[in-house]
């Protein structure tokens, strides 16, 4: 008796597991493309904010260069990352470098730093953080335009020693009630430019040798066909 009911119940459970697995698989199948597209758009949006379409005409998402392992710790990347390269008609314009600082008030602050090939900043965006709402979260461009104050700055303007909050004789504003968060971001941006200056030559060589116009914009593809 008990064996019979056990058999019946496990069969029932198995049937349910199969049906639900089938439903899940089909939903996954149906939404797969759309999800990939949304993910791509979200990633692209942040890149486009830093390097607008007027300044590049390649596919920012596909034009990538891996970061050499010896720089991972400088940039706070545990498992490496890719630099996105912006080009205009094949000429490198800027590099968008992922960078994470562990010095945030509550954990890591992840950002992407766009550096022009002359060493000045094209733009910075914080992409992930857990800072206090209302205080530290002003590093987010949706909350405050503080992050835009880095545009055009480089390690010679201001001097490296001035890459700090005003409270500590630096050149950048802190927020009312929050010093740790902006200081962490400022230091990490400085480190990122420093990395870029060190690695720039290698990167440029790499870019010129690996450049493949086919993966770039439409017009160069057409030229090639002609």
């Amino acid at each position: 008796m008990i064996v019979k009911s056990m058999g019946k119940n496990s069969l029932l459970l198995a049937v349910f597991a199969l049906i639900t697995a089938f439903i899940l698989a089909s939903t996954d199948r149906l939404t797969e493309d759309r999800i990939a597209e949304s993910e791509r758009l979200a990633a692209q949006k942040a890149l486009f904010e830093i390097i607008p379409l007027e300044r590049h005409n390649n596919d920012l998402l596909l034009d990538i260069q891996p970061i050499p392992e010896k720089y991972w710790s400088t940039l706070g990347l545990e498992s490496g990352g890719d630099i996105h390269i912006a080009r205009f008609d094949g000429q490198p314009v800027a590099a968008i470098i992922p960078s994470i600082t562990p010095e945030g008030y509550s954990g890591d602050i992840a950002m992407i730093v766009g550096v022009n090939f002359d060493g000045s900043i094209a733009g910075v965006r914080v992409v992930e953080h857990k800072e206090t709402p209302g205080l530290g979260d002003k590093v987010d461009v949706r909350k405050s335009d503080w992050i835009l104050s880095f545009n055009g700055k480089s390690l010679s303007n201001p001097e490296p020693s001035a890459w700090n909050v005003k409270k500590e004789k630096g050149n950048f504003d802190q927020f009312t009630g929050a010093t740790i968060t902006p200081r962490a971001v400022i230091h990490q941006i400085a480190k990122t430019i420093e990395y870029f200056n060190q690695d720039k030559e290698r990167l440029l060589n790499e870019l010129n040798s690996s450049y493949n116009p086919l993966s770039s914009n439409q017009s160069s593809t057409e030229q090639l066909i002609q």
Partner: protein
Amino acid sequence: MSNVSISEVTKNGLWTNNPALVQLLGLCPLLAVTGTVVNALGLGLATMMVLIGSNIIVSLIRHHVSDAVRLPVFVIIIATFVTCAELIMKAFTYELYQILGIFIPLIVTNCAILGRAEAFASKQSVGIAALDGFMMGLGFLIVLVCLGAVRELLGQGTLLADMQLLFGPIAESWTLRPFGEGYSFLIAILPPGAFLVMGFLMAIKNAIDWQIKLKAEADKPAPVKGAKRIRTTGHIS
């Protein structure tokens, strides 16, 4: 047991047995994501969809599932709906999906859903179970949105900010700023603010119930022996 009326189910879900205000179920996501209206609405809608779906399926299979495996089967059904909701949100409202993060998969642990499946849907016909799912979901959604609206208004001085995450570009201009730019009141955004506002909402509901009860008692005609019943209209205070 299939003699529950539509109005009763409606009243239960929205007021008397409201999952958030009375049953106090699903408080974790309720308190965690209600910083703004759009977050509250996103999670509320997802929860409602799952609740309706799971109630319908549970009601459909109620005669075929033995008591021994009832709960595992319910959990499988709910988990399926939650995962589907998650995939759909990821596909169509990606940024909102990122903001709500872990709280979407956690809908599965919202006891309100398993509670309704077990206590109601498994004993009722499909139509009324679906209605119960809708009303319970709506009751939960309304509380979420109220909480989100109060916290958003008090905390960052806006209302309906970032609605484009849910409704597309047309909603970008919906943001209201009744207190002007630069206003913020930190505690309302932080978790203690959620508990405070939730407490006030519950107090308001209880106060209204109390008033209704008082009024009902006052309206009851005093039984006077031997006298004719007099119909009274209006308030007697």
